[in-house]
């Protein structure tokens, strides 16, 4: 039993640094959006996204949820992938209709909903800049 506990502890110790915030990294765990921006994003979400993805981001059988499995689909990639996709393909009934600012607010809201911490500077509405920020997974609460 002790051995199992030891192995588990070792595993957690090995994984933890990868999940925890790594300071000054070009990753979302460093705090790459502001709380105000995420709050604005929640309002954009309520108007433009919630009709399909649900008020709690849970999705449906047919519409993807925006937490949990969402991270498996987007983590490890530049935030620009998500930002560009939203700009091109969302909201599905009117793709391409989000302003760059609203799109950045939405991404901030989604980062917050997926456990990434807020920081001091807002997320830029700029695909090139977002290409340098990696969306990092966060251990679920």
């Amino acid at each position, binding site marked *: 039993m002790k051995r199992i506990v030891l192995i588990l502890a070792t595993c957690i110790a090995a994984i933890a640094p990868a999940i925890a915030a790594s300071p000054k990294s070009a990753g979302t765990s460093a705090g790459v959006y502001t709380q105000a921006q995420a709050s604005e994003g929640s309002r954009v979400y309520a108007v433009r996204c919630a*009709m*399909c993805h649900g008020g709690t981001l849970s999705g449906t059988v*047919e519409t993807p949820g925006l937490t949990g499995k969402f991270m*498996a*689909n987007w983590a490890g990639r530049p935030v620009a*992938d998500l930002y560009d996709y939203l700009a091109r393909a969302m909201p*599905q*009934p009117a793709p391409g209709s989000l302003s760059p600012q609203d799109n950045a607010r939405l991404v901030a809201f989604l980062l917050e909903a997926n456990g990434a911490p807020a920081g001091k500077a807002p997320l830029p509405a700029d695909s090139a800049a977002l290409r340098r920020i990696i969306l990092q997974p966060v251990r679920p609460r």
Partner: protein
Amino acid sequence: MAFTSTRGPSSGRRTVLKGALGSVGALALSGRTFAAEPGAAPGMIQPGVKPHLTPMRVSLDQLIDMKCCIRPLRAAGPNLGTQMVGDRLVVHNYGHGGSGWSLSWGSAEVAVGKALSVLPESVAVVGCGIVGLTSAVVAQRAGLKVTIYARELLQRTRSFRASGSFTPSSRIALNGPAGPQFPEQWEQMARFSWKMFRTFLGLPGKPVEFSDSYGVSYTPMERRQWPADPAIGGSWETTGLPQQNSEFAHLDSRIRDIVPQSVNLSPEENPFDTPFATRSSHMHFNFPAYGHMLLTEFFERGGRFVMRNFHSPAEFADLPEKVIIHSTGYAAKDLWRDDTMIPVRGQTAWLVPQPEANYTLRFKNMSLLSKADGIVLMNNNPDLGDMLGVGDTNEIPNRAPFEEALAALAPIFAPLANRNARS
């Protein structure tokens, strides 16, 4: 004609069927049905006699689901071309409009054939809708090791939001961009698929089955024609969207020699007592059994599923497989930036399954198709034809047309109910 046998001498068959019902009921209770259900009409049809039909329960309390999805119409028809991404050969197999289920086997045969031509030992299939999954199984049957990379398994893809009947030229292409060679290619895929579907008839759970489809009317029935309207100036070529019905390819007549056509019913044969009626035999797919069957074969043959979301075609070069069959359906519009993909919205409502009412009713622009997982209700605007839903990417179901259809269809069943009450 093989199908005329369904109308053949059957005076003794009704008794036989009734006698068999006891054992069928027992099997059904165990969750497995191996023989015809009580309402399986084909064996009961006699010329000059009204078939005994169980009325469908057409009321709001029976509503169990509403589904909406985008048909992936591609202007030139399905993309079955190839291209290189890095050193990976990508074989496309997407853009089947409202005909993905119906053409799945024939289309997979073409795509897998191209993949095989470079002698791979394994292939990747990107996408797990009906076209992707069928491509995977066809590749396995050719001896290849297959990994599917997709966001979802079949049951959560757009394919599962179809109505699921054999409609091989539904929004399959536009005449102009498809070109003169397309009808021949389509016919080959449609005939191939048709024969493959026959290999699933009668299997446990009825993944594929035939049922009778009744069209009823209070006025003489005519097949609606959509001649080109010269008053409509634009077209897909000038606007990026089709502007009228005559732009759509209608190819079903090419396979009418094997696919059952409608016959007129005399008043003595019409169970609905409307002045005009037709009957045809129609093939449909029962999603739960079909999906289970195909996935079972895929995994039993050693198939592997990897949940993966692709953000750009460049990521295909990261896959370990050197040959990739790309079957992402409507998602190809964004993933592959295929601007010739045209969304065509469609929606269905589903009523509680009623296996004893195993037939289809069509009245005006509405239809009820009885399937294993429910009765599919559709209410399509008759004045729009193929243009209905074109350019519409909204996938939220609209309940109102279903409620209207239920109200309009309920009275059609009154003669059946009255006759059953008397007998």
